[in-house]
């Protein structure tokens, strides 16, 4: 990348309005422009910085688009096999209960191959935080149908749309997990507007802080787009997400402080 020219008259400390969090590395992210992963990463990094827990954090990355998250977040990280992040996190937290332990997983990882690990970690009430990025598709492998793919939604393995009679129904893991007595905080957020970003950040902070209470698992779902996989421009993808994903995956808290939200 070419060296950027900096206007030293403008780049003064008193003119600073935004600074990259120190918990993000300088590595250029590989995500497609318009993808929600970058924003979600930044929010997690900001919360870690604000809580001053960088040296207390162990993150577990999944298999999927965010497999390389350890390149971007400047905390100790483990890379799990596909779907198994909650099992790793269980061991890490039980061996080091004073640390902040989180997983970051996509929908294929968390809601298909890792369903058992997700449900059982939640049901055991592991004091960990799960970040669940739901874009209704397998992004990394090229846009195949995910457990969260909407009815009639096209993907490379449902080229004529998801026929629920043939391919089964989309799975609402967040609703499922909220039912379990082992979860303490379950919420669904988005990061496509500044307002949603602010709300999502609050949820992320709460999910981390809950670990100190030792009352069970916190799960933050972030409904995101996959403009490449959906074959749309970033803007179209966000609009499509609001129109189609949000009615099926409604925004907001499902469970707060161990109580279901009506």
């Amino acid at each position, binding site marked *: 990348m070419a060296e950027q020219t900096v206007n030293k008259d403008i780049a003064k400390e008193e003119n600073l309005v935004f600074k990259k969090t120190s918990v993000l590395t300088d590595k250029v992210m590989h995500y497609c422009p318009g993808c929600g992963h970058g924003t979600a990463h930044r929010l997690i990094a900001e919360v870690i910085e604000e809580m001053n827990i960088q040296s207390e954090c162990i993150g577990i990355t999944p298999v999927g688009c965010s497999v390389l998250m350890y390149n971007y977040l*400047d905390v100790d*990280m483990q*890379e*799990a096999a596909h779907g198994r992040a909650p099992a790793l996190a269980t061991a*890490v937290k*039980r*061996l080091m209960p004073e640390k902040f332990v989180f997983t970051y997983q996509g929908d294929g990882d968390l809601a298909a191959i890792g369903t*058992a690990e997700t449900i059982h970690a939640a049901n055991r009430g592991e004091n960990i935080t799960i970040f669940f990025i739901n874009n209704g598709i397998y992004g990394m492998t090229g846009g195949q149908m995910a457990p969260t793919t909407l009815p009639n939604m096209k993907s490379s393995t449902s080229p004529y749309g998801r026929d629920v009679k043939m391919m089964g129904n989309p799975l609402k893991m967040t609703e499922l997990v909220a039912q379990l007595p082992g979860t303490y905080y379950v919420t669904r957020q988005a990061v496509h507007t500044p307002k949603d970003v602010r709300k999502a950040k609050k949820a992320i902070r709460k999910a981390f802080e809950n670990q100190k209470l030792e009352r069970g698992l916190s799960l933050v779902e972030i409904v995101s787009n996959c403009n490449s996989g959906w074959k749309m421009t970033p803007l179209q993808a966000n609009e499509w997400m609001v129109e189609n994903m949000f009615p099926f995956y409604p925004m907001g808290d499902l469970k707060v402080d161990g109580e279901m939200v009506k």
Partner: protein
Amino acid sequence: MKELKLMKGNEAIAEAAIRAGADAYFGYPITPQSEVLEYLMAEKPHERTGMVVLQAESEVAAINMVYGGAACGRKVFTSSSSPGISLKQEGISYIAGSELPCLIVNVVRGGPGLGTIQPSQSDYFQATKGGGHGDYRLIVLAPSSVQEMADFVKLGFDLAFKYRNPAMILTDGAIGQMMEKVWLEEQQPRMTEFPEWATTGKKPGKERNIITSLDLDSAMQEKFNLKIQEKYREMEENEVRYETFECDDAEYLLVAYGTSARICQKSVQLAREKGIKVGLLRPQTLFPFPKKKISEMASQVKGILSVEMSAGQMVEDIKLSVEGKVKVGHFGRMGGIIHSAEEIVTALEQKIIGG
């Protein structure tokens, strides 16, 4: 002070692990090794040493918990039996690929498939040749007594940490279920300092630690593979362990490990009563395999018989070590059947001496 107990092999593994200062056990019940988890739960190691014991939702979850714990630099282990070990293979490959130490116990039962709950040695290939995907090896220890079940726990952990590689105790239902005298080591404290590569939280002023088996750069991935292959060569150089029995004047050699080796000791006695000069070589490490010693013995004896509770797996390693110098035969029982000492002598007479 060492302590003398009468214990089942499975229980000896559990007790030895607590005493070796293990930090965690993650497992899932399966016959014939459920006593490991049962014993640990009954012993409340969280009160004795602070050790974590957790019954996982599956073998898959258990091995991935081992991965997570090992990545924190802790002494962690799991145990299972053949079908469960098959399920763990993905995780074991990741653990090897991330260069993490851990101990895996396989109390082998007969297969394939659900097979039988009776003892077998049919997982030799799986244990010694890698098991999961990719070019990797486990350190494979083969106890043949309850005492060795206990001793190999500490040895397994020590080697696993020395080489940053998973170690496996490959045993079977007979030794797991059998009770013998065992001298237990005194309690060792759990570790308080952890390896510098462990993910225990990024230290201020230091680079973060990343535990991963992923490298999308092929040149780097090949370099990594060469590095771990070098490690396996080092193990072959330094860690071969075996025991010989009546080998000094032997004209014929039995090679057997684990339960089969116990039966073969009796066969050696029976054969010598008949005037046949037989010795027994018992590998205690199956990887690294005692290639050099077997090659040496091949220059001394007229023939070698591999005795395994399998269709003939270790015999391939024996043949590779012998390099055609003498006749090598195989005598196997399968499906949970254990050889009788007499039939081994008969097999030696028919397949090697007369053959």
